[in-house]
């Protein structure tokens, strides 16, 4: 790990005022890891771990989660389990108990890809070193994305939590030098395009202070299904957060997002709308999944993800709709 200067922020204002060249550090499970392997080399670290941003509560049918709430705390919170069970399931399906105790909501929103080439300084990576090329393209691509890819980057987005937040229409709250603003979760993560090194829509110096999840008719029905190489402690090959509202056997509303297959969590409004007014059954869900995977661009080792993602989506939608498989 390279040397850096360290400063502890006493307040959100102090953190934001500390300047745009600093990296904010909370739980450290992602940033410290990447600093150790010298993929990220911030010269200044501002410690935000002790700011008063860890509250979790439901107010006016909105779940408010502070950016410094730990993954464990959010996953175990009764309001989360009741109001947005898919969120809790997504968190508990990720990482290990040790990591979940340390990892925070804000860090999870900014979690970097697990692309092996991004993490290996001996290979070329456009995300790590803009313009250097991508050794993943013709490399071992089993874990890589099939949706949202560009000819510069095929790195998969690693988060489970974010997938659930996408399906739940969450909003990210940030504070920056220019004040507070809210970012719809879908706009936080950028597609790689020609600039895979630009990953987030945050402006310089902005600090995530929390996320807001509307507890509407769908959220309490949300579920998370994750398929991976091991039963525990593995990143998703494909995952799906789904929430379906059914009345008299007919889908009244449905949202779902896919994980493990996109360069960001993947949501397709057209696929969701296709289910409305149709019977809540496997056929309806399968045709929605088909739409969601349109345009998938698999590479040598990850073509299986296209079919796997469809089946994962169907299972998650059936589970939320409580349709027996």
């Amino acid at each position, binding site marked *: 790990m390279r040397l850096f200067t360290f400063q502890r922020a006493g307040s959100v204002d102090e953190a934001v005022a500390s300047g745009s060249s600093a990296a904010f550090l909370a739980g450290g499970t992602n940033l410290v890891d990447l600093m150790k392997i010298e993929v990220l080399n911030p010269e200044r670290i501002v410690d935000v771990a002790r700011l008063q941003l860890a509250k979790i509560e439901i107010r006016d049918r909105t779940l408010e989660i502070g950016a410094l709430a730990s993954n464990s705390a959010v996953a175990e919170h009764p309001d989360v389990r009741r109001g947005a069970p898919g969120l809790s399931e997504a968190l508990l399906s990720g990482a290990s108990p040790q990591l979940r105790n340390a990892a925070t909501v804000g860090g999870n929103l900014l979690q970097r890809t697990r692309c092996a080439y991004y993490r290996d*300084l001996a290979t070329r990576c456009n995300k790590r070193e803009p313009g250097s090329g991508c050794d993943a393209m013709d490399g071992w691509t089993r874990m890589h994305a099939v949706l949202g890819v560009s000819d510069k980057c095929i790195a998969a987005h690693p988060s489970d939590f974010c997938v659930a937040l996408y399906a739940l229409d969450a909003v990210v709250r940030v504070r920056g030098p220019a004040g507070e603003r809210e970012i719809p979760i879908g706009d936080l993560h950028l597609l790689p395009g020609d600039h895979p090194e630009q990953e987030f829509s945050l402006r310089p110096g902005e600090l995530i202070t929390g996320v807001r999840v509307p507890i509407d008719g769908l959220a309490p029905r949300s579920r998370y299904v994750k398929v991976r190489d091991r039963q*525990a402690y593995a990143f998703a090959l494909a995952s799906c957060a789904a929430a379906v509202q059914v009345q008299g056997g007919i889908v009244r509303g449905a949202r779902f997002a896919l994980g493990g297959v996109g360069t960001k969590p993947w949501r397709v409004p057209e696929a969701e709308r296709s289910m409305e007014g149709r019977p809540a059954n496997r056929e309806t869900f399968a045709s929605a999944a088909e739409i969601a995977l349109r345009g998938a661009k698999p590479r040598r080792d990850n073509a299986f993800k296209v079919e796997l993602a469809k089946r994962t989506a169907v299972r998650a939608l059936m589970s939320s709709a409580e349709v027996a498989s």
Partner: protein
Amino acid sequence: MDLPKRPCLLAFCRHTPRFDEAFRAELRGLGTPLFAFAPESGIVFGADDEPRDVGPRPELWRAHGAGKAALTVVLLDEKHRVRLRRDAPEAEATLLAAIREAGRSVRAGPRGIGRRELLVNSLAVALGAAVLQACASSRPAPDAKPAGATADLIDVALVVNGVERRLRVEPRVVLLDALRENLGLTGAKKGCDMGQCGACTVLADGQRVNSCLKLVAQLEGARITTIEGLARGGELHPMQQAFLQQDALQCGYCTPGQILSAVALLQEGKPKDDDDIRERMCGNLCRCGAYPNIVAAIRDVAGRA
């Protein structure tokens, strides 16, 4: 110890160089061992390990005709044939500059080389080339501090196993290294050093965490429990006792982490069944495969609670 059967660098310094934290930091992660000898001492810097004492080794001085210049650097290949050799008039500044330069070139390349042996070879070559270049063009400027090589040390007070300990460390020092190197508590083990294996698990303010990913600088006032702090007055913690009774280990390297993780698991809630234990112990890997007995030990203690 004998020299390893792979490329390595030997540096013979007429005066003992000060291998301070900045120097050691530059060496970490280079992937190539450097043997640094002074007339009275010898140290090997491995790829990831802490430096180890290897003694002065006068026979190597003789074999390589070292001692006439302030610094003699020799690059050996895997069969211990001398590939490159250079003498320099200045020891310390030259060596540090060379290591730093090698670090930069290693981080910048080589590209597209995947196989471990090739990589190690090219790292050795990069390091060797940089040392030789620095030897040739050494212009020591004692007052010029290299950028980023100094960081203010940070004072942190934390409570480890019930005792207040004060540390003065670089901001980049993680809890695991501070426990092992600064406080002499070697129970927490360094396995992967990247938050994946769980061998470094400790309790921080009652919660199990990977100590390899926690910067000490963030832990002011934290209460840390390591395996050394579990027993009470010579009596083992019930989980330690259960691990013994169930023979829940082979080599034992992962065991301190397993035990602390298991203690935390029970504090978090009674496991429903064996599958629940396995799921909740997923952050602790055991390469020997002692899992069945680890589960049995945890089941035992859970049953008594």
